[in-house]
């Protein structure tokens, strides 16, 4: 019996060892064993068909950020126009594969979807497969690109502009020790643009003020944009080491940064994608992109019958000029860098006077590409 116990214990330990090392960025190994069926929920009850669908990639729907912003845009349009909509989260949560996403999209189509909003660049493969098979269904590829299909339209944002504004504002506000933690393990172009812009903005402000700025920069945890013990401890370490503001760039990762910040009175956070100041008093600003507005707009264009003329196989690249990037103005809390200063800078970005570089490498998970700054020292972790 004892032998049996020991061997079974060893087996369990091995399983947990495998789980823990393999998914260091996912706090929940058990999630894998959880064959979570795609979760569906009706927002507008209707015994007919759900004509608008939102299918997420890996992050959870209510991430207070990217997915939620997209969803809210679709929901706003659906509610305003009385069109039934439904969202779908692919099976297996953070470990969802292309097949899971394909299944989710197909289920959406079976339920009557005629336009599917798919946020996240990870959708590409699944999207291509499904779009080919169902040429009559329209797809909105948020954070994506034109893929050569007339039934796909892409919306992509100039995240570097929001990041730039956030970095600039933080340094102008008087912070000199910044942090950036990004999701997606360095392979998510939107996150990388946010980060690159952030550092550039900090550098520009540092040059202007004549101060030296240090930016701790990491993709280490949050590969699937989820909160984790590791991330929390890492960020707590940054704050302990003197970091003043951390740019939390990735949906649910915010929770980890917030928990770390709670232990340090002076710790501050910069949110991402949507205005996250409602989540905590520690959020000084958020690098936002106009997810809701642009999704709503695209849905409007589709239902006005302008798909073929304006959207088919088109990638819209939205930035400050289109009012799609920036910092939230309604909840402005910075004092040394005023709202007027911000608007002036935003205007310069919008008219092209200041153009943050968006040229990020495909695999950004190293410090090599973050070296050419005059006043900013990037400490890559």
């Amino acid at each position, binding site marked *: *019996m*004892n032998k*049996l*116990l*020991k061997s*079974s*214990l*060893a087996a*369990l*330990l091995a399983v*947990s*060892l495998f*789980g*823990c*090392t393999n998914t*260091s960025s996912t*706090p*929940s*190994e*058990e*999630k894998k*064993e*959880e064959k*979570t069926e795609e*979760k569906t*929920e009706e927002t507008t009850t209707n015994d007919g068909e759900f004509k608008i669908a939102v299918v997420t990639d890996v992050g*959870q*729907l*209510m*991430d207070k950020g990217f997915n939620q912003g997209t969803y809210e845009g679709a929901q706003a349009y659906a509610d305003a126009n009385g069109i039934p909509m439904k969202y779908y989260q692919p099976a297996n*949560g*953070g470990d969802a594969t292309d097949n899971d996403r394909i299944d989710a999209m197909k289920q959406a189509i079976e339920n009557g979807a005629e336009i599917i909003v798919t946020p996240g660049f990870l959708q590409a493969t699944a999207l291509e497969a499904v779009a080919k098979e169902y040429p009559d269904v329209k797809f909105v590829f948020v954070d994506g690109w034109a893929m050569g299909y007339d039934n796909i339209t892409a919306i992509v944002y100039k995240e570097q502009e929001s990041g730039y504004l956030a970095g600039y504002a933080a340094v102008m506000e008087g912070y000199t020790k910044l942090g950036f933690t990004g999701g997606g393990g360095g392979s998510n172009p939107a996150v990388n643009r946010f980060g690159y812009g952030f550092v550039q903005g900090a550098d520009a402000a540092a040059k202007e003020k004549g101060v030296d700025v240090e930016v701790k920069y990491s993709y*280490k945890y949050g590969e699937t944009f*989820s*909160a*984790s*013990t*590791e991330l*929390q*401890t*890492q960020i*707590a*370490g940054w704050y*302990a*080491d003197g970091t003043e503001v951390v740019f939390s760039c990735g949906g*649910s990762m915010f*929770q*980890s940064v*917030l*928990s770390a910040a*709670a*232990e*340090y*009175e002076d710790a501050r956070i910069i949110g991402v994608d949507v205005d996250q100041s*409602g*989540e*905590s*008093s*520690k959020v000084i600003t958020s690098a936002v992109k106009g997810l809701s507005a642009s999704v709503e707009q695209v849905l409007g264009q589709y239902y006005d019958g302008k798909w073929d003329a304006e959207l088919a196989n088109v990638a819209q690249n939205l930035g400050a000029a289109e009012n799609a990037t920036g910092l939230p103005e309604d909840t402005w809390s910075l004092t040394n860098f005023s709202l007027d200063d911000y608007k002036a800078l935003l205007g310069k970005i919008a008219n092209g006077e200041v153009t943050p570089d968006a040229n990020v490498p495909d695999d950004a998970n190293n410090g090599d590409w973050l070296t050419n700054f005059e006043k900013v020292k990037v400490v890559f*972790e």
Partner: protein
Amino acid sequence: MVFILQKTLIFTIPLLIVALAGMFAERSGIINIALDGIMIFGAFIGAVVALFLRTNVSFFVDHNQLLFITCMIAAALAGALFSLLLSFSAIKFNANQTIGGTALNLLAPAIALFLIKVFTSKDQLEMGMAYDTLGGRHDFSYVITNGELPDILKIFFDKMYISTYVCIILFIILSIFIYKTKTGLRIRSCGENPQAADSVGINVYKMRYLGTSISGALAGLGGYVYIATVANGTASGAVAGMGFLALAIMIFGNWHPVGIAFGALMFGFLKCLSVVYSQFEFTKNLGLPMYFYNIIPYLAVLIVLAFSAGKSRAPKAEGIPYDKGSR
């Protein structure tokens, strides 16, 4: 340095209390492999209670530490109730305890995740902003800060959680309980030789229920302490294998509180190091990949167990359903 010691202590506490939980069950003769599952369940219930009280009773937003203690109690109760599934099947129906425990380990995350997804459309239960009685907005945090102390005191009193003290006190009280009281002796005797215990009039079934329930309560408590202090205050249907780690620490500690305390400290340190290694010049300059540090605690478990297995002295009757007839 202060930082890593603070974090070590915070990582150690849940391991310590959950390893003690394992000890209580095994000393009474029930193998509690379900520690991980009970932790998850306790954490989930604790988080549900916290969320409910924070959003509905502003008194608790004013009194954060009271909220924490209430949630710890709720988690402990939930853990004890959940562990009854194990003790009931193992004691009443003489079921195989390893299999019963594994079932609980599979059940707990499933229940937690299912309910979280159904009610919040999220993968995890998060604590948001709440309003106190005066209408002020408060972030969720249980931390107690004392930034003015000298370094040595900071380790214990700055950025600290009340759970740390609660757990240490509980650990001491329960260690004394199992070694110095009559009931403690009875529990231990049921794990060593239940037939002999029965022959002198000890109710073996009752003692085993007691041992397992204490175990469940401690594991549930440990689960909530874990998520409240190190895992973002969110319940996500997982505790990163802490329950299994605690089980290993219990074996490493030879089913004895002192050994357990030592083991928990060691693994707490290693687990902490695996995350904060990049903060130190020395470890940073070694240039080893982060996965190496992530592996260390688990590798250490395997190595330590391999070496200490020969010397380990498990309770003799653990895992064997008590059969009155075989006396």
